[in-house]
Structure formats: structure tokens, C-alpha cells
């Protein structure tokens, strides 16, 4: 919903929150995931919950909430309570602030005393996190501390160990270290967002004393939005690609009219430097695994001439796809999406022209089209929108651009073969198919939350769940990593299921089976099935059962089990199907071109 996109109007959201919620829920065809979020507060949290709900619904996440009693975050985290135990949170958000620091240093303390106080204060929090991890295997999001709105020691408040500011910065450093070594733990950086909002306005003591809100009520949308960014990123709802306009977006001026020598880029004047900084900002996204593409109304020759300038930061090679032609941009973006095999809704379209923005926004459901404003505000708006919020940087993210480039190469080379099998053999594919291992837990969890198309049951899992399944001997788990002569695709297939002893013998139920669309039609699913069958036989299992639950996006795997030689056992009125494979009969491998392990 456009009202919830940055830059939103916080007062409008606060005032209209009930109507906004109603409108969000009235939208049709939204493919929601449901998540249980426990808010453990050190101050009032009611409106934080209500506004967070709006942003999450907008991201396609339907939250259920547990809210601790006023300032009972510590007790609930450390000792739990019946209601929370029954609730089984997916995420615990600990909303604490500088108001929850019980004791600050005073100037009479020795250095040793201040050190001990910092340690004790920190440990009180770490105790909460450890207890929550242990009891709920949940993801934890923890506020760090905002800066105080007064400085007793003046400028020394930041440098003297007795200063509140010094103390807060120190604690924030300790929180960050914990986050660094715990993949299911995230910092909600209120230290940054309060500074951006204005510390003085953020603090608003009257809202604290009247309502026990530890921040100004008007700042709640900023807090909630920041939090929603993290949550949607955890559940794989980040955007994947940029579709960028060129003229007056990547450089100043119109390359076709002005000539490449006259566009504004480089370092010659203020405007050129501004566009250069923007190009640098865009280029830095490549390393985060964000795909760069162009959607420009231009003759291709002119577009490339703009990028070929020696002082252009972005070059032709930075882009996976360049569409510079006179077709409508929505068509070009749809085409690019198809070539890259990603959804058109995973693009962020950046264009200085409001008419182009309106067209693309109307034609492509779910695409993000920020109101970027003037060139000097491009970075601020894109950055604050949080399209690509980083949660866990995996090695795969860093290589993603290369992988897609290799895919485009593969597509080109497939055209030169008459026989598809010959093409597959020419790829020299090698797969690693093994039980879930610690190195890949975050990627596996990410795939369960991101994959929509080649996904039989669309079961979403947190990393903590994946880890507990991996340890359970009742489960068989396998990830598949695929490499070929063009490059490494990384982990692209995931499956797990559980054993059951029944009167008909030992049965294996496939709870989850998914594959990334970047390796469609390569036979990877057959190689995975071989490994599952082999493991089942080893465990004395006589039958495998597979399930298909239809969603708006997974039609492509409707007949997956049939293709794998399973028999249809049951179908209900809603096209949910159940399939069986008898392991006592011989089964044939569909894998022809992949060597395994």
C-alpha cells in the first residue's frame, strides 16, 4: 500500500491506523505467511504493535502477537510464562531503551566499578537472550540503546567513562558483538533511527511520564518500520534487483540529445559529482548480491555510450541485462524478470520521471517504485526504504550476480545443441547432496522462506527450526549444491521429512521439497530423489509419501511426484494431493548428467 512506503507520513499512519488495517486486509490475492511475534517490552508497546502490524501486512506477513505485561520483558524472557510457552513465538522482540538501564555510572565510581557495572548491565540482557533461545528456539530482535537527551558532563559525556553517553556506546558495542556471533539474533538499531529522527524530539519526556512510551508517539512509525524491515528480510521478502532508468537518474541530462560528452557524470562540477555518488551507491549493491539491470528509453547505442565514458562509475559489465529501447518500461522489466528467472515483483524501479513510475507501478503488481524526488535525495530515499535489508550475509549473496551471469551464458550455449541431454552432459555438473550442515543453515532457512514456485508444501522455517530438525534422528535432511563448468550455483535444493512406524511398515513422509528456479530443468531434483531413496533404503523404510499443497505460485510442481514415479494416493477438493512410492519395487533414476558427492 503506497501510504506505507517510505517516505510515509507518520501522523497519517497513527491517525488512520484502523482504516489502513481494514484496507490492507481487504486486498485480494495476497499470499500471506503467518508469524508469531512476542513483544517483550520495557515500556509501553501497544501502538508499536499496532503500527508494526500494518507494515508487516503490507509485506505479506500476517503477525500474531503476544505482548508482555508492562515492563515485564526481563521476567518473561528469563522465566517464561504459560501464555508465552503456549504461544511458541517465531520471533521475540525485546523493546528496551535507555530508560531500562537501571543504574548509570556516577562520577564517584572507580574505573573498576564502572567496568563491573557495564558487565552486569550487559549480562542482564544476555541472560534474557540465552534463556529465550533455549526455551523457544526463536529468532531474537533486540533494540540497542538510543543516546540520552541530556549530557551531564557536556562533551565529556562521550569520552569520560562516567558519562551516560560513554556507557551507552559501550553497551551498544557489546550488543553488536553478540549479534556478530549469533545468526538468529538481530539488533534493531534505534541508536541510528533516533539520531536520524532527532534525539531531542525522539525522547519527548512528556510521552514517557504520561504514557510510559520511551519514545515520542510520533516516532513510533519509524521504529515499527525499521523493525518490519528486519522481519521481512528474515523471512525472505527482500527485493532482489534494481531496474534503473538512465537519463537524469544515473547521470544528468539526456544522452541521446546532449551527446555522451555532455551528460553530467564524473567530478567536473557539483551535479556530476552528485550523480557519481549515486552510481557508487548503486554499484556497491552488486557486492550484496543485488542484481543490476537497466530499463531506459533510449537507443541502445546511446545508452552504452553513456556507460562507456571513462569517468562513469557504472560500466556495461555491471549490468546483467540492459534494456535500452522504446518499448514501455513495464514490458522491458517483465522481459528482464523472465530472462533472470526471478519475479517482476522482486524489482525496485528507479526513475526520475513520475509518469514512468506511475505506469510501472500500475502494470506490475508488487513491484517497488520509490518516490525518489530530486537527485540529491535518491540515496536517502532508497536507503531508508530498506528494500535490501541485510540480515545474514552469506557467501552466496556475494556471488549471486556472477551466478546469474553464468545462467545467461548457459542459456546461450543451450541454443547450440540439438539434443537437450547432450546439452546437460556438456555442462559437466557436479552436485554435493548431504545432510544439513552448520555451514549452510542460514541459506537453507532462507530458501524455505523465499522459494515459491518449485516448492511442494511451501513450509516456511526459521533457522532455529532447521537446526533442531537437523539434530532430530527421526528426520532425514538433504541439501543440494550444484556446480557446473560455468560456475557454482551454491545451495539450490532442500528437502527433509520424517519417519513413521506404521502397520504397513516404516514410512518416510516428505515434509518439504524445494528447489531454486535458477537450476530448473537440470535434473537436480532427480539427483536429490536418488539420495533420499538410498537413505530410506538404508534405514529400512519401505514406502515414501510425498505431498503437494497448491498455492498461487507453485503450479509448476503439480505433477512433480508423478514425474518421479509416485502413485497418486489421495486428492481432496482443493487439489491437495498425496503420493506414494513403493521402495520394494525397482525404481529408475532420472538423473543422467550430474555426478554426486
Amino acid at each position, binding site marked *: 500500500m503506497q501510504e506505507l512506503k517510505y517516505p510515509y507520513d507518520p*501522523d497519517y499512519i*497513527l*491517525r488512520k*491506523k*484502523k482504516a489502513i488495517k481494514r484496507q490492507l486486509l481487504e486486498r485480494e490475492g495476497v499470499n500471506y505467511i503467518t508469524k508469531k511475534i512476542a513483544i517483550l517490552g520495557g515500556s509501553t508497546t501497544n*501502538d508499536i504493535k499496532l503500527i508494526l502490524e500494518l507494515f508487516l501486512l503490507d509485506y505479506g506477513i500476517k503477525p500474531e502477537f503476544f505482548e508482555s505485561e508492562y515492563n515485564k520483558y526481563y521476567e518473561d524472557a528469563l522465566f517464561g510464562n504459560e501464555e508465552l510457552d503456549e504461544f511458541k513465538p517465531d520471533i521475540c522482540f525485546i523493546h528496551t531503551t535507555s530508560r531500562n538501564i537501571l543504574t548509570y555510572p556516577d562520577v564517584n565510581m572507580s574505573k573498576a566499578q564502572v567496568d563491573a557495572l557495564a558487565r552486569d548491565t550487559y549480562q542482564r540482557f544476555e541472560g534474557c537472550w540465552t534463556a529465550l533461545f533455549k526455551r523457544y528456539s526463536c529468532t531474537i530482535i533486540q533494540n540497542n540503546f538510543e543516546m540520552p537527551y541530556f549530557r551531564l558532563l557536556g562533551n565529556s559525556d562521550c569520552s569520560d567513562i562516567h558519562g551516560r553517553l560513554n556507557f551507552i556506546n559501550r553497551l551498544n558495542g557489546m550488543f553488536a558483538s553478540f549479534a556478530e556471533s549469533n545468526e538468529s539474533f538481530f539488533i534493531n538499531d534505534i541508536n541510528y533511527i533516533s539520531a536520524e529522527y532527532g534525539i531531542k524530539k525522539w525522547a519527548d519526556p512528556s*510521552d514517557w511520564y*504520561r504514557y510510559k512510551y520511551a519514545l515520542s508517539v*510520533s516516532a513510533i512509525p519509524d521504529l515499527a518500520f525499521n523493525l518490519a524491515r528486519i522481519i521481512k528480510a528474515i523471512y525472505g521478502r527482500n527485493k532482489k534487483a534494481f531496474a534503473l532508468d538512465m537519463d537524469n537518474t544515473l547521470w544528468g541530462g539526456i544522452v541521446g540529445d546532449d551527446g555522451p560528452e555532455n551528460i553530467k557524470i564524473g567530478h567536473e562540477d557539483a551535479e556530476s559529482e552528485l550523480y557519481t555518488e549515486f552510481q557508487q551507491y548503486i554499484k556497491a549493491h552488486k557486492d550484496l548480491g543485488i542484481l543490476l539491470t537497466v530499463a531506459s528509453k533510449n537507443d541502445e547505442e546511446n545508452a552504452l555510450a553513456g556507460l562507456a565514458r571513462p569517468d562513469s562509475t557504472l560500466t556495461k559489465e555491471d549490468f546483467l541485462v540492459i534494456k535500452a529501447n522504446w518499448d514501455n518500461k513495464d514490458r522491458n522489466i517483465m522481459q528482464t524478470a523472465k530472462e533472470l528467472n526471478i519475479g517482476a515483483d522482486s524489482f525496485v524501479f528507479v526513475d526520475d520521471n513520475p509518469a514512468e513510475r506511475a505506469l510501472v507501478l500500475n502494470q506490475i503488481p508488487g513491484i517497488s517504485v520509490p518516490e525518489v524526488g530530486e537527485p540529491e535525495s535518491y540515496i536517502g530515499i532508497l536507503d531508508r526504504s530498506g528494500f535490501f535489508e541485510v540480515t545474514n550475509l552469506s557467501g552466496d549473496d556475494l556471488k549471486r550476480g556472477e551466478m546469474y551471469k553464468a545462467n545467461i551464458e548457459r542459456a546461450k550455449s543451450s541454443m547450440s545443441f540439438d539434443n537437450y541431454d547432450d546439452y546437460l552432459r556438456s555442462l559437466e555438473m557436479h552436485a554435493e547432496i548431504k545432510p544439513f550442515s552448520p555451514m549452510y543453515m542460514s541459506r537453507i532457512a532462507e530458501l524455505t522462506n523465499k522459494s515459491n514456485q518449485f516448492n511442494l508444501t511451501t513450509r516456511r522455517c526459521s533457522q532455529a527450526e532447521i537446526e533442531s530438525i537437523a539434530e532430530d534422528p527421526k528426520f532425514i535432511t538433504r541439501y543440494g549444491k550444484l556446480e557446473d563448468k560455468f560456475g557454482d550455483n551454491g545451495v539450490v535444493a532442500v528437502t527433509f521429512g520424517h519417519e513413521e512406524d506404521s502397520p504397513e511398515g516404516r514410512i518416510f513422509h516428505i515434509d518439504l521439497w524445494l528447489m531454486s528456479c535458477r537450476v530448473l530443468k537440470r535434473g537436480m531434483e532427480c539427483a536429490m530423489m536418488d539420495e533420499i531413496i538410498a537413505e530410506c533404503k538404508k534405514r529400512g523404510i519401505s514406502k515414501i509419501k510425498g505431498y503437494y499443497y497448491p498455492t498461487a505460485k507453485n503450479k509448476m510442481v503439480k505433477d512433480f511426484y508423478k514425474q518421479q514415479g509416485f502413485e497418486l494416493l489421495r486428492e481432496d477438493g482443493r487439489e491437495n494431493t498425496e503420493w506414494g512410492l513403493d521402495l520394494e519395487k525397482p525404481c529408475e533414476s532420472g538423473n543422467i548428467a550430474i555426478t554426486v558427492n
Partner: protein
Amino acid sequence: MTREEVYGKLNEVFQDVFDDEDIEVNDGTTSADVDGWDSLEHINLIVAVERTFGIKFTMGETTGLKNVGEMVDKIIAHLG
């Protein structure tokens, strides 16, 4: 701004905050008369009123309000 004009704007605020287009408030209206006007929603109401009229109540002003009439008195005093 006249008292009538203040009420015109104030009714819109009430309608938005309580998501009910039929709300009409007057001097005698109290929290008991409006569905959903509890202490938590009171916070949103005050914030929305402040924003709408471009004023900022002092802390003391918002805690002891008896009815909408008193709120309107305070708004008019702030608008001066």
C-alpha cells in the same frame, strides 16, 4: 478559529482515530460515550489533535480533561 470550526476539525479527528464516520462530539462528550476510547487510544487522540491544530499540550493539560468541552477550551487557548 471559532468554536464551531474547531468542532468541525475535531470531529474528523475522532472519526479517523476511532474509525467511525458517524461520530459527532460536543461539549458534554466523555470517554464513556465513544466506543474504544480507552487510555491507550486516548494517547493517539491527543497526538492527532496536536498535529491537526499544530499545537502542543503541556503534560498537565492532557491528564485531567473531564470532557470534550474542556479539550476544546484548551485548543482555543493554544490557538490564541
